[in-house]
Protein backbone atom coordinates (compact mmCIF):
# COMPACT_ATOMS: atom_id res chain seq x y z
CA UNK A 1 0.00 0.00 0.00
CA UNK A 2 2.70 2.44 1.01
CA UNK A 3 4.84 1.58 -2.02
CA UNK A 4 2.23 2.55 -4.58
CA UNK A 5 1.44 5.66 -2.61
CA UNK A 6 5.10 6.60 -2.81
CA UNK A 7 5.55 6.09 -6.53
CA UNK A 8 2.25 7.87 -7.10
CA UNK A 9 3.68 10.83 -5.25
CA UNK A 10 6.90 10.68 -7.26
CA UNK A 11 4.90 10.68 -10.46
CA UNK A 12 2.94 13.73 -9.39
CA UNK A 13 6.18 15.43 -8.43
CA UNK A 14 7.71 14.76 -11.83
CA UNK A 15 4.60 15.92 -13.63
CA UNK A 16 4.54 19.09 -11.58
CA UNK A 17 8.24 19.67 -12.18
CA UNK A 18 7.79 19.25 -15.88
CA UNK A 19 4.80 21.56 -15.97
CA UNK A 20 6.64 24.26 -14.06
CA UNK A 21 9.77 23.95 -16.18
CA UNK A 22 7.77 24.37 -19.36
CA UNK A 23 5.43 27.02 -17.99
CA UNK A 24 7.56 30.16 -18.49
CA UNK A 25 7.97 29.33 -22.16
CA UNK A 26 4.22 29.20 -22.59
CA UNK A 27 3.30 32.12 -20.43
CA UNK A 28 5.91 34.78 -20.82
CA UNK A 29 4.26 37.71 -19.08
CA UNK A 30 6.74 39.33 -16.66
CA UNK A 31 4.00 39.85 -14.09
CA UNK A 32 3.16 36.16 -14.05
CA UNK A 33 6.85 35.26 -13.98
CA UNK A 34 7.33 37.50 -10.96
CA UNK A 35 4.34 35.95 -9.24
CA UNK A 36 5.67 32.46 -9.85
CA UNK A 37 9.07 33.40 -8.47
CA UNK A 38 7.39 34.73 -5.33
CA UNK A 39 5.31 31.55 -5.05
CA UNK A 40 8.45 29.40 -5.28
CA UNK A 41 10.24 31.64 -2.81
CA UNK A 42 7.52 31.45 -0.20
CA UNK A 43 7.04 27.74 -0.83
CA UNK A 44 10.73 27.29 -0.09
CA UNK A 45 10.54 29.42 3.04
CA UNK A 46 7.50 27.48 4.20
CA UNK A 47 9.15 24.15 3.48
CA UNK A 48 12.19 25.20 5.47
CA UNK A 49 9.91 26.30 8.30
CA UNK A 50 8.04 23.03 8.03
CA UNK A 51 11.10 21.05 9.09
CA UNK A 52 11.24 22.65 12.52
CA UNK A 53 7.65 23.83 12.85
CA UNK A 54 5.64 21.18 11.06
CA UNK A 55 7.65 18.03 11.60
CA UNK A 56 9.36 18.68 14.92
CA UNK A 57 6.45 20.75 16.16
CA UNK A 58 8.62 23.63 17.35
CA UNK A 59 6.71 26.67 16.17
CA UNK A 60 9.21 29.31 15.16
CA UNK A 61 7.79 32.78 14.60
CA UNK A 62 11.18 34.26 13.91
CA UNK A 63 12.42 32.43 10.82
CA UNK A 64 12.65 35.76 9.02
CA UNK A 65 15.84 36.36 10.93
CA UNK A 66 17.58 33.65 8.92
CA UNK A 67 16.16 35.11 5.73
CA UNK A 68 17.79 38.41 6.65
CA UNK A 69 21.06 36.76 7.66
CA UNK A 70 21.27 35.13 4.24
CA UNK A 71 20.42 38.25 2.28
CA UNK A 72 22.54 40.63 4.31
CA UNK A 73 25.57 38.34 4.52
CA UNK A 74 25.84 37.80 0.79
CA UNK A 75 25.16 41.47 0.06
CA UNK A 76 27.71 42.76 2.57
CA UNK A 77 30.34 40.30 1.40
CA UNK A 78 29.66 41.43 -2.14
CA UNK A 79 29.96 45.10 -1.23
CA UNK A 80 33.00 44.87 1.03
CA UNK A 81 34.91 41.88 -0.26
CA UNK A 82 33.73 41.65 -3.86
CA UNK A 83 32.72 38.10 -3.15
CA UNK A 84 30.35 36.40 -5.56
CA UNK A 85 26.88 36.09 -4.08
CA UNK A 86 27.06 32.32 -4.64
CA UNK A 87 29.90 32.16 -2.12
CA UNK A 88 28.06 34.71 -0.03
CA UNK A 89 25.04 32.43 -0.03
CA UNK A 90 27.06 29.61 1.51
CA UNK A 91 28.53 32.00 4.06
CA UNK A 92 25.04 33.26 4.87
CA UNK A 93 23.74 29.74 5.32
CA UNK A 94 26.59 28.86 7.66
CA UNK A 95 26.07 32.00 9.70
CA UNK A 96 22.37 31.20 9.92
CA UNK A 97 23.17 27.69 11.16
CA UNK A 98 25.44 29.07 13.87
CA UNK A 99 22.75 31.55 14.88
CA UNK A 100 20.21 28.72 15.05
CA UNK A 101 22.49 26.79 17.39
CA UNK A 102 23.15 29.81 19.57
CA UNK A 103 19.46 30.66 19.82
CA UNK A 104 18.20 27.09 20.01
CA UNK A 105 20.54 25.82 22.68
CA UNK A 106 19.02 27.79 25.58
CA UNK A 107 15.58 28.32 24.09
CA UNK A 108 14.70 24.72 23.22
CA UNK A 109 14.81 23.82 26.88
CA UNK A 110 11.68 25.92 27.19
CA UNK A 111 8.39 24.29 26.37
CA UNK A 112 6.55 24.79 23.09
CA UNK A 113 4.84 28.10 23.63
CA UNK A 114 7.88 29.69 25.22
CA UNK A 115 9.96 28.78 22.21
CA UNK A 116 7.50 30.56 19.92
CA UNK A 117 7.52 33.65 22.12
CA UNK A 118 11.31 33.63 22.28
CA UNK A 119 11.54 33.53 18.49
CA UNK A 120 9.18 36.49 18.20
CA UNK A 121 11.34 38.42 20.66
CA UNK A 122 14.56 37.60 18.83
CA UNK A 123 13.03 38.63 15.52
CA UNK A 124 11.92 41.97 16.90
CA UNK A 125 15.31 42.59 18.51
CA UNK A 126 17.01 41.85 15.22
CA UNK A 127 14.69 44.24 13.38
CA UNK A 128 15.39 47.06 15.80
CA UNK A 129 19.11 46.33 15.67
CA UNK A 130 19.40 46.29 11.89
CA UNK A 131 17.19 49.33 11.41
CA UNK A 132 19.51 51.36 13.59
CA UNK A 133 22.86 49.98 12.53
CA UNK A 134 24.23 52.40 9.94
CA UNK A 135 27.14 50.23 8.93
CA UNK A 136 24.76 47.70 7.40
CA UNK A 137 22.50 50.26 5.84
CA UNK A 138 20.20 51.01 8.73
CA UNK A 139 16.57 51.58 7.89
CA UNK A 140 17.39 52.57 4.31
CA UNK A 141 18.79 49.16 3.56
CA UNK A 142 21.39 48.13 1.03
CA UNK A 143 21.28 48.45 -2.73
CA UNK A 144 23.19 46.14 -5.01
CA UNK A 145 24.45 48.01 -8.08
CA UNK A 146 23.85 46.59 -11.53
CA UNK A 147 26.66 44.69 -13.14
CA UNK A 148 26.92 46.30 -16.53
CA UNK A 149 28.01 44.90 -19.86
CA UNK A 150 30.42 46.60 -22.28
CA UNK A 151 27.74 48.92 -23.61
CA UNK A 152 26.72 49.99 -20.11
CA UNK A 153 23.46 48.10 -19.96
CA UNK A 154 22.56 46.03 -16.91
CA UNK A 155 23.85 42.59 -17.72
CA UNK A 156 23.02 38.95 -17.16
CA UNK A 157 25.81 37.34 -15.20
CA UNK A 158 25.91 33.98 -13.47
CA UNK A 159 29.11 34.82 -11.66
CA UNK A 160 27.56 37.81 -9.96
CA UNK A 161 24.13 36.24 -9.66
CA UNK A 162 22.28 38.95 -11.55
CA UNK A 163 19.93 38.51 -14.51
CA UNK A 164 18.71 41.89 -15.64
CA UNK A 165 17.82 41.36 -19.28
CA UNK A 166 16.35 37.91 -19.10
CA UNK A 167 15.02 37.14 -15.65
CA UNK A 168 14.35 33.49 -16.39
CA UNK A 169 17.31 32.11 -14.41
CA UNK A 170 15.77 33.51 -11.21
CA UNK A 171 12.68 31.47 -11.97
CA UNK A 172 14.64 28.27 -12.42
CA UNK A 173 16.86 28.80 -9.40
CA UNK A 174 13.83 29.39 -7.20
CA UNK A 175 12.14 26.34 -8.70
CA UNK A 176 15.24 24.23 -8.12
CA UNK A 177 15.41 25.30 -4.48
CA UNK A 178 11.74 24.50 -4.00
CA UNK A 179 12.18 21.00 -5.40
CA UNK A 180 15.39 20.44 -3.45
CA UNK A 181 13.51 21.24 -0.26
CA UNK A 182 10.67 18.97 -1.34
CA UNK A 183 13.17 16.19 -1.86
CA UNK A 184 14.79 16.81 1.50
CA UNK A 185 11.42 16.86 3.23
CA UNK A 186 10.41 13.62 1.53
CA UNK A 187 13.67 12.02 2.63
CA UNK A 188 13.17 13.22 6.20
CA UNK A 189 9.62 11.92 6.13
CA UNK A 190 10.84 8.41 5.42
CA UNK A 191 13.99 8.24 7.49
CA UNK A 192 15.27 8.34 11.05
CA UNK A 193 15.56 12.13 11.58
CA UNK A 194 11.99 12.66 10.37
CA UNK A 195 10.67 9.88 12.59
CA UNK A 196 12.46 11.38 15.55
CA UNK A 197 11.15 14.87 14.70
CA UNK A 198 7.58 13.60 14.61
CA UNK A 199 8.06 11.62 17.81
CA UNK A 200 9.27 14.80 19.52
CA UNK A 201 6.27 16.68 18.21
CA UNK A 202 3.84 14.06 19.51
CA UNK A 203 5.35 13.37 22.92
CA UNK A 204 8.79 14.56 23.93
CA UNK A 205 9.10 12.45 27.07
CA UNK A 206 8.02 9.27 25.33
CA UNK A 207 10.64 10.04 22.68
CA UNK A 208 13.28 10.46 25.39
CA UNK A 209 12.36 7.12 26.89
CA UNK A 210 13.11 5.54 23.50
CA UNK A 211 16.61 6.95 23.37
CA UNK A 212 15.92 10.09 21.35
CA UNK A 213 18.24 12.98 22.25
CA UNK A 214 15.47 15.54 22.04
CA UNK A 215 17.63 18.65 22.28
CA UNK A 216 19.99 17.44 19.57
CA UNK A 217 17.19 16.68 17.14
CA UNK A 218 15.39 19.95 17.78
CA UNK A 219 18.65 21.75 17.04
CA UNK A 220 19.11 19.70 13.87
CA UNK A 221 15.66 20.67 12.64
CA UNK A 222 16.28 24.32 13.46
CA UNK A 223 19.69 24.35 11.80
CA UNK A 224 18.36 22.78 8.58
CA UNK A 225 15.50 25.24 8.56
CA UNK A 226 17.87 28.17 9.09
CA UNK A 227 20.31 27.13 6.37
CA UNK A 228 17.73 26.90 3.62
CA UNK A 229 15.91 30.03 4.73
CA UNK A 230 19.23 31.89 4.45
CA UNK A 231 19.84 30.59 0.91
CA UNK A 232 16.43 31.92 -0.07
CA UNK A 233 17.41 35.23 1.51
CA UNK A 234 20.36 35.51 -0.85
CA UNK A 235 18.15 34.67 -3.82
CA UNK A 236 15.74 37.40 -2.74
CA UNK A 237 18.48 39.97 -2.34
CA UNK A 238 19.89 39.20 -5.76
CA UNK A 239 16.46 39.23 -7.36
CA UNK A 240 15.42 42.64 -6.08
CA UNK A 241 18.97 43.99 -5.86
CA UNK A 242 17.79 45.61 -2.66
CA UNK A 243 17.44 44.53 0.92
CA UNK A 244 16.22 46.31 4.04
CA UNK A 245 15.13 45.40 7.56
CA UNK A 246 11.44 46.02 6.96
CA UNK A 247 11.16 43.58 4.08
CA UNK A 248 13.28 40.86 5.64
CA UNK A 249 12.82 41.00 9.39
CA UNK A 250 9.27 42.10 10.01
CA UNK A 251 7.19 39.81 12.19
CA UNK A 252 4.56 39.65 9.48
CA UNK A 253 7.08 37.86 7.26
CA UNK A 254 7.72 35.21 9.93
CA UNK A 255 4.02 34.81 10.46
CA UNK A 256 3.39 34.55 6.72
CA UNK A 257 6.04 31.86 6.34
CA UNK A 258 4.42 29.82 9.08
CA UNK A 259 0.95 30.49 7.72
CA UNK A 260 1.81 29.21 4.24
CA UNK A 261 2.92 25.92 5.77
CA UNK A 262 -0.01 25.74 8.17
CA UNK A 263 -2.56 26.51 5.47
CA UNK A 264 -1.13 23.87 3.19
CA UNK A 265 -0.70 21.26 5.90
CA UNK A 266 2.07 21.06 8.50
CA UNK A 267 4.32 18.07 8.56
CA UNK A 268 3.50 17.09 4.99
CA UNK A 269 5.74 17.16 1.96
CA UNK A 270 3.37 19.03 -0.35
CA UNK A 271 1.54 21.20 2.17
CA UNK A 272 3.87 24.22 2.05
CA UNK A 273 3.92 24.20 -1.75
CA UNK A 274 0.15 23.96 -1.91
CA UNK A 275 -0.17 26.68 0.68
CA UNK A 276 2.07 28.98 -1.30
CA UNK A 277 0.19 28.45 -4.55
CA UNK A 278 -3.03 29.42 -2.76
CA UNK A 279 -1.91 32.16 -0.41
CA UNK A 280 0.62 34.15 -2.41
CA UNK A 281 -1.60 34.91 -5.41
CA UNK A 282 -4.32 35.77 -2.90
CA UNK A 283 -1.99 38.19 -1.18
CA UNK A 284 -0.81 39.75 -4.41
CA UNK A 285 -4.35 40.08 -5.74
CA UNK A 286 -5.64 41.78 -2.63
CA UNK A 287 -2.68 44.12 -2.70
CA UNK A 288 -3.25 44.98 -6.36
CA UNK A 289 -7.01 45.38 -6.35
CA UNK A 290 -7.57 46.96 -3.01
CA UNK A 291 -5.15 49.75 -3.69
CA UNK A 292 -3.16 51.55 -1.05
CA UNK A 293 -4.85 49.88 1.87
CA UNK A 294 -4.04 46.48 0.38
CA UNK A 295 -1.22 46.00 2.85
CA UNK A 296 -3.60 45.89 5.76
CA UNK A 297 -6.23 43.86 3.96
CA UNK A 298 -3.89 41.00 3.24
CA UNK A 299 -2.97 40.94 6.93
CA UNK A 300 -6.68 40.73 7.74
CA UNK A 301 -6.99 37.81 5.37
CA UNK A 302 -4.02 36.07 6.99
CA UNK A 303 -5.53 36.56 10.43
CA UNK A 304 -8.90 35.23 9.33
CA UNK A 305 -7.23 32.23 7.75
CA UNK A 306 -5.33 31.43 10.93
CA UNK A 307 -8.60 31.42 12.87
CA UNK A 308 -10.44 29.36 10.25
CA UNK A 309 -7.70 26.76 9.96
CA UNK A 310 -7.27 26.39 13.72
CA UNK A 311 -10.98 25.95 14.30
CA UNK A 312 -12.11 23.93 11.30
CA UNK A 313 -9.18 22.24 9.65
CA UNK A 314 -5.95 22.15 11.63
CA UNK A 315 -4.45 19.72 9.16
CA UNK A 316 -4.64 22.35 6.44
CA UNK A 317 -5.46 21.82 2.78
CA UNK A 318 -3.65 18.48 2.69
CA UNK A 319 -5.86 17.33 5.53
CA UNK A 320 -8.91 18.48 3.63
CA UNK A 321 -7.80 16.39 0.69
CA UNK A 322 -7.43 13.36 2.96
CA UNK A 323 -10.87 13.96 4.43
CA UNK A 324 -12.45 14.21 1.00
CA UNK A 325 -10.80 10.97 -0.06
CA UNK A 326 -12.47 9.38 2.94
CA UNK A 327 -9.40 8.44 5.01
Amino acid at each position, binding site marked *: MKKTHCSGQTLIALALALALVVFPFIVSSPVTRNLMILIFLYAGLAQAWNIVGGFAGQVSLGNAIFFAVGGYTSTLLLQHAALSPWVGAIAGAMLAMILALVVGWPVFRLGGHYFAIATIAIGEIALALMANWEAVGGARGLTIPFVRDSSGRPADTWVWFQFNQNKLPYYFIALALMFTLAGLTAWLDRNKPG*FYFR*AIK*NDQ*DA*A*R*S*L*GVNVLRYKLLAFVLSAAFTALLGTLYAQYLLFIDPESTLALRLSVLIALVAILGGVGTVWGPILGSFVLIPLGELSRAHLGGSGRAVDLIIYGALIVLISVFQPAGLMGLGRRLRGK
Partner: protein
Amino acid sequence: MALLEIRGLTKTFGGLTAIDDVSFRVEEAEIVGLIGPNGAGKTTVFNCVSGFYEPTRGRLHFAGHEITGWAPHRVCRLDMARTFQIVRTFSDLSVLENVMVGAFLRTGNRAQAERAARHVLELMGLAAKAEMRGGSLTIAEKKRLEMARALATKPRLLMLDEVMAGLNPAERQAAVELVRQVRAEGITILMVEHVMEVIMPISDRIVVLNYGRKIAEGRPETIARDDQVIAAYLGEKYRGRH
Protein backbone atom coordinates in the same frame (compact mmCIF):
# COMPACT_ATOMS: atom_id res chain seq x y z
CA MET B 1 26.51 -8.65 39.65
CA ALA B 2 22.90 -7.57 39.59
CA LEU B 3 21.59 -6.03 36.38
CA LEU B 4 19.97 -3.17 38.25
CA GLU B 5 21.05 -2.03 41.67
CA ILE B 6 19.21 0.66 43.60
CA ARG B 7 20.95 1.84 46.76
CA GLY B 8 19.52 4.26 49.28
CA LEU B 9 17.35 5.96 46.69
CA THR B 10 15.67 9.07 48.07
CA LYS B 11 13.64 11.66 46.20
CA THR B 12 12.16 14.77 47.74
CA PHE B 13 10.03 17.44 46.13
CA GLY B 14 10.37 20.52 48.28
CA GLY B 15 9.05 19.43 51.65
CA LEU B 16 7.57 16.13 50.41
CA THR B 17 9.64 12.96 50.57
CA ALA B 18 8.31 10.73 47.82
CA ILE B 19 10.72 7.86 48.40
CA ASP B 20 13.06 7.39 51.31
CA ASP B 21 16.15 5.18 51.33
CA VAL B 22 14.82 2.51 48.98
CA SER B 23 17.24 -0.25 48.07
CA PHE B 24 16.81 -3.41 46.07
CA ARG B 25 18.30 -5.28 43.16
CA VAL B 26 17.02 -6.88 40.03
CA GLU B 27 18.97 -9.84 38.73
CA GLU B 28 19.24 -10.75 35.08
CA ALA B 29 16.27 -12.69 33.67
CA GLU B 30 14.13 -12.10 36.74
CA ILE B 31 10.63 -10.76 36.84
CA VAL B 32 10.42 -8.44 39.84
CA GLY B 33 7.11 -6.97 40.92
CA LEU B 34 6.94 -3.58 42.65
CA ILE B 35 3.73 -3.17 44.60
CA GLY B 36 2.24 -0.86 47.17
CA PRO B 37 -0.68 1.48 47.78
CA ASN B 38 -1.26 4.53 45.62
CA GLY B 39 1.24 7.23 46.42
CA ALA B 40 3.76 4.75 47.80
CA GLY B 41 6.38 5.98 45.37
CA LYS B 42 6.46 3.20 42.79
CA THR B 43 6.35 5.44 39.75
CA THR B 44 8.83 7.79 41.44
CA VAL B 45 11.27 4.89 41.64
CA PHE B 46 10.71 4.25 37.95
CA ASN B 47 11.22 7.89 37.07
CA CYS B 48 14.47 8.04 39.04
CA VAL B 49 15.82 4.83 37.54
CA SER B 50 14.90 5.79 33.97
CA GLY B 51 16.36 9.25 34.29
CA PHE B 52 13.22 11.39 34.33
CA TYR B 53 13.87 12.50 37.89
CA GLU B 54 17.22 13.25 39.42
CA PRO B 55 17.56 11.41 42.75
CA THR B 56 18.01 13.57 45.82
CA ARG B 57 20.20 10.91 47.40
CA GLY B 58 21.26 7.40 46.61
CA ARG B 59 22.95 5.58 43.79
CA LEU B 60 21.82 3.66 40.77
CA HIS B 61 23.83 1.07 38.93
CA PHE B 62 22.78 -0.58 35.72
CA ALA B 63 24.66 -3.11 33.61
CA GLY B 64 27.86 -2.26 35.40
CA HIS B 65 27.53 1.51 34.91
CA GLU B 66 26.62 4.10 37.49
CA ILE B 67 23.62 5.85 36.00
CA THR B 68 22.66 8.16 38.86
CA GLY B 69 21.42 11.40 37.35
CA TRP B 70 21.74 10.30 33.74
CA ALA B 71 19.33 11.76 31.18
CA PRO B 72 16.52 9.46 29.95
CA HIS B 73 17.83 9.05 26.43
CA ARG B 74 21.26 8.03 27.73
CA VAL B 75 19.76 5.46 30.04
CA CYS B 76 17.76 4.01 27.18
CA ARG B 77 20.89 3.66 25.11
CA LEU B 78 22.25 1.47 27.86
CA ASP B 79 19.49 -1.03 27.15
CA MET B 80 16.84 0.04 29.61
CA ALA B 81 13.32 0.73 28.40
CA ARG B 82 10.11 1.72 30.15
CA THR B 83 6.44 2.18 29.59
CA PHE B 84 4.28 4.88 31.15
CA GLN B 85 1.38 4.61 33.53
CA ILE B 86 -0.75 6.85 31.32
CA VAL B 87 -0.05 5.66 27.81
CA ARG B 88 1.98 8.01 25.68
CA THR B 89 1.28 6.87 22.15
CA PHE B 90 2.59 8.92 19.26
CA SER B 91 -0.98 9.62 18.13
CA ASP B 92 -0.21 11.02 14.70
CA LEU B 93 2.10 8.19 13.74
CA SER B 94 0.86 4.80 12.57
CA VAL B 95 1.26 1.75 14.79
CA LEU B 96 4.18 0.63 12.68
CA GLU B 97 5.79 4.07 12.77
CA ASN B 98 5.41 4.19 16.55
CA VAL B 99 7.42 1.02 16.90
CA MET B 100 9.92 2.15 14.29
CA VAL B 101 10.83 5.10 16.48
CA GLY B 102 11.94 2.53 19.02
CA ALA B 103 13.70 0.43 16.41
CA PHE B 104 15.67 3.39 15.11
CA LEU B 105 17.68 3.34 18.32
CA ARG B 106 19.51 0.29 17.04
CA THR B 107 19.83 1.21 13.38
CA GLY B 108 19.90 4.27 11.17
CA ASN B 109 18.59 2.33 8.22
CA ARG B 110 14.91 2.71 7.47
CA ALA B 111 14.39 -0.72 5.92
CA GLN B 112 16.05 -2.43 8.86
CA ALA B 113 14.03 -0.44 11.35
CA GLU B 114 10.84 -1.34 9.51
CA ARG B 115 11.74 -5.04 9.52
CA ALA B 116 12.57 -5.00 13.22
CA ALA B 117 9.37 -3.12 13.99
CA ARG B 118 7.19 -5.54 12.02
CA HIS B 119 8.83 -8.43 13.86
CA VAL B 120 7.94 -6.93 17.23
CA LEU B 121 4.40 -6.18 16.07
CA GLU B 122 4.02 -9.85 15.16
CA LEU B 123 5.17 -10.88 18.63
CA MET B 124 2.72 -8.46 20.20
CA GLY B 125 -0.20 -9.48 18.02
CA LEU B 126 -0.52 -6.00 16.53
CA ALA B 127 0.63 -6.81 13.00
CA ALA B 128 -2.87 -6.49 11.57
CA LYS B 129 -3.11 -2.91 12.83
CA ALA B 130 0.27 -1.78 11.51
CA GLU B 131 -1.10 0.98 9.28
CA MET B 132 -3.66 2.30 11.74
CA ARG B 133 -3.15 5.67 13.31
CA GLY B 134 -1.73 5.30 16.82
CA GLY B 135 -4.32 7.60 18.33
CA SER B 136 -7.19 5.43 17.12
CA LEU B 137 -6.37 2.27 19.09
CA THR B 138 -8.19 1.04 22.19
CA ILE B 139 -6.52 1.47 25.54
CA ALA B 140 -5.49 -2.18 25.69
CA GLU B 141 -3.99 -1.97 22.22
CA LYS B 142 -2.18 1.25 23.10
CA LYS B 143 -0.62 -0.43 26.11
CA ARG B 144 0.53 -3.27 23.95
CA LEU B 145 1.85 -0.77 21.43
CA GLU B 146 3.82 0.99 24.13
CA MET B 147 5.32 -2.33 25.18
CA ALA B 148 6.11 -3.14 21.56
CA ARG B 149 7.76 0.23 21.09
CA ALA B 150 9.88 -0.23 24.19
CA LEU B 151 10.83 -3.75 23.09
CA ALA B 152 11.95 -2.45 19.70
CA THR B 153 14.80 -0.67 21.45
CA LYS B 154 16.10 -4.14 22.34
CA PRO B 155 16.42 -3.53 26.08
CA ARG B 156 17.99 -5.84 28.64
CA LEU B 157 15.67 -4.45 31.29
CA LEU B 158 12.05 -3.56 30.58
CA MET B 159 10.20 -1.53 33.19
CA LEU B 160 6.43 -1.80 32.94
CA ASP B 161 4.31 0.74 34.75
CA GLU B 162 0.83 -0.65 35.41
CA VAL B 163 0.33 -2.33 32.05
CA MET B 164 -2.70 -4.17 33.41
CA ALA B 165 -4.68 -1.14 34.49
CA GLY B 166 -7.85 -0.65 32.53
CA LEU B 167 -7.78 -4.07 30.91
CA ASN B 168 -10.58 -6.61 31.11
CA PRO B 169 -9.77 -10.16 32.30
CA ALA B 170 -9.30 -11.53 28.79
CA GLU B 171 -6.95 -8.69 27.86
CA ARG B 172 -5.10 -9.22 31.12
CA GLN B 173 -4.52 -12.88 30.35
CA ALA B 174 -3.11 -11.91 26.99
CA ALA B 175 -0.87 -9.32 28.63
CA VAL B 176 0.43 -11.84 31.17
CA GLU B 177 1.26 -14.20 28.32
CA LEU B 178 3.13 -11.40 26.58
CA VAL B 179 5.16 -10.65 29.70
CA ARG B 180 6.07 -14.31 29.97
CA GLN B 181 7.07 -14.37 26.32
CA VAL B 182 9.22 -11.27 26.74
CA ARG B 183 11.05 -12.87 29.64
CA ALA B 184 11.51 -16.00 27.57
CA GLU B 185 13.39 -13.83 25.10
CA GLY B 186 15.89 -13.14 27.85
CA ILE B 187 14.66 -9.72 28.89
CA THR B 188 14.57 -8.82 32.57
CA ILE B 189 11.36 -7.26 33.80
CA LEU B 190 10.56 -4.87 36.62
CA MET B 191 6.86 -4.23 36.81
CA VAL B 192 4.65 -1.98 38.90
CA GLU B 193 1.21 -3.44 39.33
CA HIS B 194 -1.94 -3.16 41.38
CA VAL B 195 -3.62 -6.28 40.08
CA MET B 196 -2.49 -8.96 42.55
CA GLU B 197 -3.95 -11.84 40.58
CA VAL B 198 -1.56 -10.93 37.82
CA ILE B 199 1.64 -9.91 39.52
CA MET B 200 1.84 -12.57 42.19
CA PRO B 201 1.82 -15.56 39.84
CA ILE B 202 4.37 -14.26 37.37
CA SER B 203 6.91 -12.52 39.61
CA ASP B 204 10.01 -14.25 40.88
CA ARG B 205 10.30 -11.68 43.62
CA ILE B 206 8.18 -8.89 45.00
CA VAL B 207 9.25 -5.57 46.50
CA VAL B 208 6.67 -3.73 48.58
CA LEU B 209 6.65 0.03 49.09
CA ASN B 210 4.55 2.03 51.53
CA TYR B 211 4.76 5.78 52.13
CA GLY B 212 7.99 5.88 50.15
CA ARG B 213 9.74 3.16 52.12
CA LYS B 214 10.45 -0.45 51.33
CA ILE B 215 8.57 -2.53 53.86
CA ALA B 216 9.10 -6.01 52.47
CA GLU B 217 10.93 -7.97 49.82
CA GLY B 218 10.82 -11.61 48.93
CA ARG B 219 9.10 -14.39 47.09
CA PRO B 220 5.37 -13.88 46.38
CA GLU B 221 4.29 -16.61 48.86
CA THR B 222 6.28 -14.93 51.63
CA ILE B 223 4.93 -11.50 50.81
CA ALA B 224 1.35 -12.75 50.78
CA ARG B 225 1.78 -13.81 54.41
CA ASP B 226 3.69 -10.77 55.61
CA ASP B 227 1.74 -8.96 58.35
CA GLN B 228 3.08 -5.53 57.49
CA VAL B 229 2.20 -5.92 53.83
CA ILE B 230 -1.25 -7.18 54.63
CA ALA B 231 -1.90 -4.34 57.01
CA ALA B 232 -0.59 -1.71 54.63
CA TYR B 233 -1.94 -2.95 51.36
CA LEU B 234 -3.23 -6.44 50.69
CA GLY B 235 -5.91 -6.72 53.33
CA GLU B 236 -6.79 -9.74 55.48
CA LYS B 237 -8.89 -11.32 52.75
CA TYR B 238 -5.76 -11.80 50.70
CA ARG B 239 -3.62 -13.36 53.45
CA GLY B 240 -1.78 -16.36 52.16
CA ARG B 241 -4.10 -16.56 49.19
CA HIS B 242 -1.34 -16.88 46.68
